[in-house]
């Protein structure tokens, strides 16, 4: 029975494809931005329905399905394009076969449903697997990227290192900050480490506690930690919380922190001959001509 139905579907593939293409066209309006060209949409639809028929002809082979799903994922099309497309294929095929059969009893009907499901389901499974695989892959890459971003350490000049913190600090990140700070301070031979909290939205007792501990650990390896980028409202909340920062040197801005880091390392910034003079002289000499 199944093979007979496959034969009917294949023999009438032109009609079924035509019916399906008409239906799938309705997806374009709701699900796709206007940036997807009609041509791309139509070509992909044709490819999609060919992939379905190839799989049916080859008794459920999924090789072309894999290649096709990769293409859809690269295009960034929604998963619903695939699931809706396959549902439409199911409906169209069942409608077509029913309306072209003379004797339709319940057993024929149920066998038809079973057969068509058997064609479509492995394809749906395969496509969904490919999709979730790609999502999981993206998620794990993003997680690594976030972790790399979460406690970066920048060696600015000999002996001076900066850790700019941006965003919420949870316990996992607080641990990472401590590890990177110590590891980096040793690796770069830092005498001064500046922790910049300009981008940290809330400094509560947990965050303050971790910063104090990190600074203490940095002190134990013989370096100095300076907390910089304390916004006025953060300074107020720290005072309200009654957190004692007397053992931790603080500066309001990174610039001031960097200047005192230079002092600690016995250096200072010197302006060379100001550039403006040169330009002014040039203008004068030009006017003189």
């Amino acid at each position, binding site marked *: 029975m199944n093979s007979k139905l496959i034969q009917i579907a294949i023999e009438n593939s032109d009609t079924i494809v035509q019916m399906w293409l008409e239906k799938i066209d309705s997806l374009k309006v709701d699900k796709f931005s206007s940036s997807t060209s009609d041509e791309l949409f139509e070509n992909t639809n044709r490819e999609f329905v060919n992939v379905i028929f190839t799989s049916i002809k080859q008794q459920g082979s999924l090789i072309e399905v894999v290649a096709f799903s990769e293409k859809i994922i690269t295009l960034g099309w929604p998963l619903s394009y695939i699931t809706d497309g396959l549902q439409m294929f199911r409906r169209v095929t069942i409608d077509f076969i029913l309306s072209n059969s003379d004797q339709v009893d319940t057993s024929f009907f149920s066998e038809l449903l079973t057969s068509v499901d058997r064609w479509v389901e492995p394809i749906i499974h395969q496509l969904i697997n490919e999709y979730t695989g790609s999502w999981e892959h993206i998620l794990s890459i993003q997680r690594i990227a976030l972790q790399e971003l979460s406690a970066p350490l920048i060696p600015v000049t000999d002996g001076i290192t900066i850790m700019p913190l941006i965003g919420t600090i*949870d316990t996992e990140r607080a641990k990472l900050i401590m590890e990177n700070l110590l590891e980096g301070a040793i690796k770069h031979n830092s005498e001064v480490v500046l922790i910049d909290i300009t981008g940290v939205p809330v400094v509560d007792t947990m965050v303050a506690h971790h910063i104090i501990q990190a600074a203490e650990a940095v002190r134990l390896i013989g370096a100095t930690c300076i907390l910089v980028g304390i916004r006025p409202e953060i300074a107020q909340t720290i005072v309200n919380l009654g957190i004692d920062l007397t053992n931790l040197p603080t500066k309001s801005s990174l610039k001031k922190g960097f200047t005192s880091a230079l002092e600690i390392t016995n250096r200072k910034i010197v302006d060379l001959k100001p550039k403006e003079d040169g330009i002014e002289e040039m203008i004068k000499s030009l006017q003189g001509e």
Partner: protein
Amino acid sequence: MSPHSCVKIRKEWDIVSARQLGREMAKKLGFSTVDQARIATAVSELARNIYLYAEEGQICFEVFETIERKGLRMGAFDTGPGITDISQVMQDGYTTSGGLGAGLPGVKRLMDEFDIQSEIGQGTQIKTVKWVR
């Protein structure tokens, strides 16, 4: 936004959601930047205490207005183990978790009104208010 909304605290990141809601409501009510930061910090402390000591609970916000003034109510409710000695936990530096012990006394100073009720085995209720100045 409805004038009354709650955030359930179960995971560490729920603390961030509660904080964001608190800050958003404070901003809409016209609190200053400093007061917004105070409210967000107070939410963070109470939500973290729920996460650490009670495992489950919620932070609720309510806007309320009288003819004379406007304010934000913020409450922390949990069904955790409760607190035996309230005057002890309200002391600066008292902690059972190796923290700074600054959370609860800090919240009292960050907010304008502070009320704590606790029953052993039943849970803890903390109600606070901040007035718009």
